[in-house]
């Protein structure tokens, strides 16, 4: 029995459409990932590659600097999303409630995210300068001289100071996304609540937040992933110091690959491979934990 030519799969056309994307994906995503995993089992030197089995993984398990970097990165990745999204929700609600000067505030709050981490880093190094930086100048003006500090020079303050910068930078972006979500809320639900004399707090907690929960979840996950990879801000401001208090996995990986006077790419690849798995598991876990079990209907 002969098949109808119309039923036949157009493999030629399929290949023609898929091939460019597949080639790019294979060359720039799949191959580097597989190569990194391959490298992690080797000592990779110029013109020399030596199989070391699990030795890199065993060394990494005992590497206290790596685990310190993991700790800092997790603190950052857990604290930042909550602060950013929390502040962003507050700002978005203020704009949704049409506070005076809302056009100005919308632009002003969104502007930081338009700057690169490099520019932001340089600006904040100035702001945090002990002698003449704006942070200490404001404290001195307010008579709070004793609170003046070397914000990024003190191991106890450096990480919170950097977390503050990313919160300042990204809250505006989250605000814009949340504002769009608020504007797309079904007006009949809000109006029905108002007819039932529902106050602002109850309306926010029982209606608005559940309705924008998917957006909140996406922003939390995106922020979490972003902080798990953070590098440039740390590199510009503290290079992981003082005393590794701001060392993140990305900065440590870079140091091991390019600054530890070794050409070996095997150990840095091990860090990258392990961190990839940790981030993947964390994101899967986070998504699962925060996923809505019941679909909202309205």
């Amino acid at each position: 029995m002969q098949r109808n030519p119309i039923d036949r799969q157009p493999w030629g056309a399929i290949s023609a459409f898929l091939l460019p994307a597949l080639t790019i994906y294979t060359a720039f995503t799949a191959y580097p990932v597989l190569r990194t995993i391959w490298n992690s089992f080797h000592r990779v030197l110029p013109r020399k590659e030596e199989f070391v089995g699990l030795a890199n993984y065993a060394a990494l398990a005992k590497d206290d600097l790596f685990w310190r970097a993991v700790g800092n990165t997790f603190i950052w990745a857990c604290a930042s999303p909550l602060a950013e999204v929390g502040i962003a929700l507050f700002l978005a609600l203020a704009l949704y409630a049409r506070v005076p000067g809302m056009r100005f505030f919308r632009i002003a709050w969104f502007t930081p995210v338009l700057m690169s981490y490099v520019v932001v880093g340089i600006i904040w190094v100035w702001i945090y300068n002990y002698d003449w930086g704006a942070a200490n100048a404001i404290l001195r003006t307010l008579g709070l001289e004793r609170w003046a500090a070397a914000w990024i020079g003190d191991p106890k303050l450096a990480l919170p100071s950097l977390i503050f910068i990313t919160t300042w930078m990204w809250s505006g972006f989250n605000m814009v996304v949340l504002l769009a979500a608020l504007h797309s809320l079904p007006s009949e639900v809000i109006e029905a609540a108002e007819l039932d004399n529902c106050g602002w707090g109850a309306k926010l907690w029982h209606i608005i937040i559940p309705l924008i929960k998917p957006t909140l979840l996406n922003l939390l996950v995106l922020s979490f992933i972003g902080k798990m990879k953070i590098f440039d801000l740390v590199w510009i401001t503290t290079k992981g110091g003082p005393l590794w208090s701001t060392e993140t996995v990305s900065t440590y990986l870079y140091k091991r690959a390019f600054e530890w006077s070794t050409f070996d790419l095997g150990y840095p690849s091990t860090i990258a491979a392990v961190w990839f798995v940790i981030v993947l598991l964390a994101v899967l876990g986070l998504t699962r934990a925060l996923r809505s079990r019941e679909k909202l209907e309205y």
Partner: protein
Amino acid sequence: MRIASLIIAAACALASIAATAQTKVTLWSHWAAEKIKRDFVEDAIRRFEAANPGVKIEAQWYEKTALYAALKTALRAGTAPDIFYAEPDQTEYMENNLLLDLSSLNWGGIEPWAKEIWSHKGKPYGLPLEAWTVELFYNKKLLADLGIKVPSSMQLDAAAMTDLVKKARVRNQTPMALGAGDRPFPGAHLTHEALLKRLGVADYDNLLTGKLSWSDARVVDTLRTLRSWIDAGLLPTTFTTLKLGESHSYFHTNPGAVLFLNGSWYTSRAFNPPDKGGQPPNFPLGIMKYPAMPQAVCNECRTISVGGSFVVNAETKNGRQAIAFLNSMATPETASRWLENVLVQTGIKADYSKVGGPHAGYFKELAATSQGARYYFGIPIQKMQGKQKEVFTQVFNNAFPAGTISVDDAVKQMNAAYAK
């Protein structure tokens, strides 16, 4: 007839190609933003090309970080230049056989100590163009205002140093400009010079190579002396974020400091015009020795280091020409030109007494601080590798001078870094 003229034309063309054929030697170097050093190397290239018409040196200029990153990739890929800038702490180049053995270089024109610094497993690998010592510069006027006189030995003792710090702080002046904001070594000068004096060359080397514990009583004592200066307010409050370039102007211009502990290459920035970051005209610059430490084995000991150097790629096809170029720089004339223009020491043999120009007096004073000195070659991060280097940088370049780590914790961190 036509064929004959074609043959003649082809022969002429071939001859002209042969006449103009040149060996192209590639060179990648740091100093893109350091015009004086770049001008010096470009002048050396011009002189070499004039003397060797068959060789063309093609230089590309980078800033150090970009250069190192580019080299790491290029050396792996086999696309690295024939000659490139390197510093002797980059032992990874030698350990991976990426550099050409320069035994055939004219070492007679180079200081033996500079050759030693560039030697790895008995073979020399780099032309040590730039050398430097750790110097304690001071503002003669500010020091006189504090009522402190530099003794004829050019060296204060620890008590006088404590006195200086306290007196400067009373007058709301910063005793010593120093910043570790963008480099892994300036903050550590404070510690390593003190330890070298207290321990002497042999034990100091043992300390850096892990053969002597950081818990050694002499080490701990020295760190406590330093900590007393730090706690008395020795360094700027902005020390941790102050960049190297900024620390220069902090010392000589704004806000001004009494002392400045820095490599002798201070002058390659400071002797520029003020609008290019130089010190003000008639700035009362003085040099003294690092303070004598209590119970020191060797108060005349000091660090000398080799900085910017040129090495040859092991895979070069132009090794002969590359070595010839490096040899053209290993002469007393080149060394004098370097001293007079760049105003920093060099590893090439030079007669410092013959240095002329407007800064001849400075070189005399610089030579006086080294009178009778015993040298240790290289700063600690040039001796250390991997974790030891990382921990030393975090602790002694940053946290210890900033006063954010105790002596006991600093010792603990260093011992842990050396633990097998």
